[in-house]
């Protein structure tokens, strides 16, 4: 029982870290109809910025997170204007080619300037401490990740369902020409959503760095995991992405405990089963 609870905590933390990183990707794919394979690259950029801010400049962890999110968005905005804007209405193939190209560029640039070694983001004392939950002690950082995941999920739901921006965004997604006729500036809406998605990626990259260490090949190494989570959850659905992350996180962590020799077998088996049963993902909407 203790072991089961213990695995459940690990699964929850891992799933939440995946959720924070992937929810932005899910939003870009569904809302903006861009298959952004470079999403992981932005998570990694966030990680590098936070690592530099906390480790080399000695700033606090919180500052590191804020700087990472702002810095990554600042880097991403010109990329969106110059590159992404050209592919919004193009075929998925061009989108995949363009974004995977961006991924390779980012890998090359990071490798050249920062070298192939791992970058860590030192945790503040409060998060590095282990917290006794009664049945086991867990690193405080994991509780922080779980809490962050919940805040992100709630915040996004509120933003999309309950605010004026959310209404405009949903309108732009449903019927862009009509939304434009009604005076909604879809370009600005798209730009802001993209910035939001990238900011979340950076946030996820930083808080998830203990699970998915920051290094130049980050984007490529975890690309499949990120895409799988989005497709299992159903693109654009916040509860779907949350469910997918928790389900896949649980299966992955449990399989790794019980049958480590099987590698990712059960993870992908689950993916195949879910995709067969729910072709649009757990909670994807009909197109």
């Amino acid at each position, binding site marked *: 029982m203790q*072991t089961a609870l*213990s*695995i459940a905590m*690990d699964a929850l*933390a*891992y799933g939440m870290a995946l959720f924070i990183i992937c929810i932005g990707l899910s939003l870009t794919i569904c809302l903006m109809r861009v298959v952004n394979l470079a999403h992981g690259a932005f998570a990694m950029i966030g990680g590098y910025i936070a690592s530099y801010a906390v480790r080399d400049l000695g700033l606090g962890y919180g500052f590191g997170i804020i700087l990472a999110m702002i810095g990554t968005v600042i880097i991403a905005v010109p990329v969106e204007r110059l590159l992404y804007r050209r592919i919004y209405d193009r075929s998925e193939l061009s989108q995949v080619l363009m974004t995977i190209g961006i991924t390779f560029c980012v890998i090359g640039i990071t*490798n050249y300037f920062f*070298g*192939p*070694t*791992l*970058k*860590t983001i030192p945790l503040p004392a409060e998060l590095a401490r*282990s917290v006794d939950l009664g049945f086991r*002690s*867990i*690193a405080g*950082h994991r509780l922080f990740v779980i809490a962050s995941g919940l805040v992100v999920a709630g915040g996004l739901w509120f933003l999309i369902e309950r605010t004026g921006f959310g209404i405009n965004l949903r309108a732009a997604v449903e019927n862009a020409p009509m939304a434009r006729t009604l005076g909604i500036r879809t370009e600005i809406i798209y730009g802001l959503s993209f910035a939001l998605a990238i900011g979340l990626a950076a946030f996820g990259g930083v808080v998830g760095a*203990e*699970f*998915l*260490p920051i*290094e*130049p*090949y980050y984007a490529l*190494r975890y690309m499949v995991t990120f895409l799988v989570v989005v497709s299992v959850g159903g693109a654009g659905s916040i509860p779907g992405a949350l469910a997918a992350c928790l389900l896949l996180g649980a299966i*992955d*962590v*449990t399989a*790794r*405990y019980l049958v*480590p*020799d099987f*590698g*990712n077998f059960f993870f992908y088996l689950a993916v195949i089963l879910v995709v067969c049963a729910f072709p649009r993902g757990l909670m994807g909407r009909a197109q």
Partner: protein
Amino acid sequence: MADTIKVGIIGPFSGPFALQGKNFQAGAEAWLAQNGKTVAGHDIELVYRDLPTANPQQARALAQELIVRDKVQYLGGVYFTPDAMAITPLLKQGNVPLVIFNAATSAIMTSSPLVVRTSFTLSQTTTPLGKAAVERGVKTFVSIVSDYGPGVDAEGAFKKAIAAAGGDVKEAIRIPLNTTEFSPIMQRIRDAGAQGVFAFLPSGPPTLGFVKAFSDTGLKKAGVKLFAPGDLTQESDLPALGEAAAGLITSFHYAVSHESEINKRFVAAAEKAIGAPDLVSFPAVGAYDGMFVISKMIAATAGKQDAEKAVEAVKGLGWESPRGPVKIDPETRHITQTIYLREVAKDAQGRWINKEIASVPEQKDSGLTK
């Protein structure tokens, strides 16, 4: 007139393992910087070929290209075992010896008589670890290795060493190579109730994640002892590992902090070649000694291309390496060397190092003696 003798070096100079390739280059360049570019009146020219990840077909193609088009007389380098295995069948036909700077599976040496190795094997570095662990009062172990050739070698060697020393490996777990989230594994260790853990994973994100998880999940605090070959604590990762790795006991053939005059000079030259002091790691010493072996081969054959004679000439060759006294075992052509037990600790300047605490001299590759 002096000939130019070309040496082809194959390694991961780009990609996720570029650091190891850079160390090949740093080691080779350091040797040339200290000994000059001519041997017995012949100029040496290094030709580098990039092989970013383990890829046997490409390794074979690169070696073939080096032999046929670039007309190299010697091949060196090779980071991964499968790549080395793909190259060895070409050696006889091409009349070219291969000096391995890293690839560490025992079986490579049996695949061609024209291979010489200046690195180490997992069996060689792991064997003394079992004895040392039991001597420290740790009797029951869980072994965790990455599920690939060297991992299986390490597991086998450790089990054998533990059995010989009177300890017990309760559970042997193999995990996928790309694992980076280790909490479930840590829970497995906790449930197994062993006093010690033996772990081998290749340097990089997995080792960082493993050592951190070991510390974060409270196993380290609970008094479980972690033993590993030096791959887990290669010097370039130590700044990132920091406190989490403190006190970890590893066994390896080389520590950058090894105390000797010759090592100091080697490290200075390698740092200069690699461009940054904290990037020097163990593949550099394999390359440095590899260049020494190649220079002896060139001298013995008077610059002529004769692979058999060249290899024959270095069998039994002994010298003082930056890692200590070494010798090429005439039977296996693998390097015989001192294996050190090290503990992760801070040096006088406050930098994390692998501090040598004991040495086991003249270790051959136990993986080849059945």
